[in-house]
């Protein structure tokens, strides 16, 4: 008999990601049985009880670098020992790499990047954007467990009740046998801000920043003033003003922040594809006819080189 929801809770060296709290609270609210948090590579997680975990299970091992084989084996082990009806994970690079492989191994169905989840009788049904957000579709998974990855910031971050959950090791041993690949080097991130896909605030610049210096002196400081992650249009990236990893859109990152500030971005359909689900969109553009204004919550028709520094000052004042 399968039952309950297993939530893969990601962390950085024992510090849980916000997506872990978000998914646990959602899992709890579905009322589909017990909620179990799965923690890979750390022997902790009692605080996850405050967000809805009834219990926490851990798998020991080195998961600091993502290794497909170890990840798949660990989640497989957890599924085999707990028989959950549903497995949820954030749509992180790890889960998007590992869960399809696991689905193929066990013959399971997987729904990618859902932005809504609801209980439907005994089952959990997802809803997800397709065609880069130009359409939505309901995704029904008939296998048990049903696997879902959830786009970060879809449900909002709950506050902890302060409860604590029991933590127990699953006693699995991973590693060795399933070493498909090795990570021989990791290139550190160029900044310490949140990854675009998980960021709650993003400030993006377009081609009209004119140079790398323009991006570094206009977009980066404005982003830093509100703890936002800098992003860019493809035209900006292709011109070499911002790194590829900053690109938002169809062939870049899909983002879902609560605040997205588009500085000098026209709002081409391929850019919108990556950011249209942002909760609040601010557009600054000299052209009142720019398509971005049709999607903006707030718009300013003006020169971003004039707006940028003033906006930074005002934001700093508002946050201090």
């Amino acid at each position, binding site marked *: 008999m399968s039952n309950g929801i297993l939530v893969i809770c990601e962390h950085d060296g024992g510090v849980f990601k916000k997506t872990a709290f978000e998914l646990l609270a959602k899992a709890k609210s579905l009322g589909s049985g017990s909620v179990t948090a799965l923690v890979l590579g750390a022997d902790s997680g009692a605080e996850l009880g405050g967000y809805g975990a009834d219990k926490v299970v851990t798998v020991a091992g080195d998961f600091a670098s993502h290794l497909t084989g170890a990840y798949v084996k660990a989640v497989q082990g957890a599924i085999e020992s707990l028989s959950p009806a549903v497995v949820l994970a954030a749509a992180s690079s790890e889960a998007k790499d590992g869960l399809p492989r696991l689905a193929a191994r066990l013959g399971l169905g997987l729904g990618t990047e859902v932005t809504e989840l609801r209980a439907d009788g005994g089952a959990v049904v997802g809803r997800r954007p397709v065609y880069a957000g130009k359409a939505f579709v309901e995704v029904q998974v008939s296998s048990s467990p049903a696997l879902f990855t959830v786009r970060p910031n879809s449900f909002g971050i709950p506050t902890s009740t302060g409860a604590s959950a029991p933590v127990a090791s699953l006693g699995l041993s991973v590693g060795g046998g399933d070493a498909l690949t090795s990570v021989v080097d990791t290139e550190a991130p160029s900044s310490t801000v949140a990854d675009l896909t998980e960021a709650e605030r993003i400030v993006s610049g377009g081609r009209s920043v004119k140079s790398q210096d323009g991006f570094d002196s206009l977009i980066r400081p404005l982003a830093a003033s509100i703890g936002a992650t800098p992003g860019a249009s493809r035209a900006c990236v292709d011109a070499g003003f911002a790194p590829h990893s900053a690109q938002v859109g169809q*062939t870049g990152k899909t983002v879902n922040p609560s605040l997205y500030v588009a500085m000098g971005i026209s709002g081409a359909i391929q850019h919108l594809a990556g950011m249209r689900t942002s909760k609040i969109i601010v557009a600054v553009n000299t052209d009142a006819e720019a398509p971005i204004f*049709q999607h903006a919550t707030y718009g300013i028709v003006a020169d971003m080189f004039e707006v940028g520094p003033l906006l930074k000052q005002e934001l700093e004042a508002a946050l201090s």
Partner: protein
Amino acid sequence: MIIGVCLKQVPASDSRIKIDGSGAGVDASDLKMEINPYDEFALEEALKLKDAKVAKKVIVLTVGGSDSEQRIRDALARGADDAVRLDDAAFAGSDSLGIARILAAAAQKEGVGLILAGKQAIDDDNSQVPAMVAELLGWPQVTVVDKLELDGGSFKAWRQSGGGVRDVVTGSLPAVISADKGMNTPRYAKLRGIMMAKRKKIPVYDAAALGLDPASVGAAGAKVTQVNWSEPPARPPGRILSGEVPSMVKELVTLLRDEAKVL
């Protein structure tokens, strides 16, 4: 070595997507189709490996109807040597795992030693097929790769990992690699390639030719079904501020703090 490139046709990235009347899917009647942009990076990487004489042959693998033939010919025109189209009434309604089973069977039949795919098809946006193909074949995978090096029987691949970290991943061939933007700049077809591609035969394999159990693919084998298609929720009309720049900026920050509550 033979490289297999998984190539899918998708609506052009600037297409308007209309839901058909019943909400059962997308109205595809006047969509302009293109090669999935990530598959263009996969194809280009394969062609570069052939140019460098690391690969002997590049073969395109497509699960799709006869309307995808034009995209396959585009790939042949750019320099792919061969292509197979995988098509059978039994394939209709496949989920990602069904598609992966078909592609894995084709890769085996063609003796492929490296599979290059896109990180994601920009129609269903699933990002599932490449890792599934790897598992079905028992090969290592590296997904979302923007740089690849081959050295004899081993590979080195660079991928964006979580938190802005870039991992350098090694393993041995055969393997599946899924391509991200940044890997290369896709070439255009030359006239001579276009002429040659016109004459190429594109064999079509069905379930029997691939040795697939029809119950394992298509709607019969699918664990995932997509229903109730709808347009995205409309955004309420936005507000364009007016006045001098300093006052607009002040008003914006007030709105962000007090109305939108995002500060």
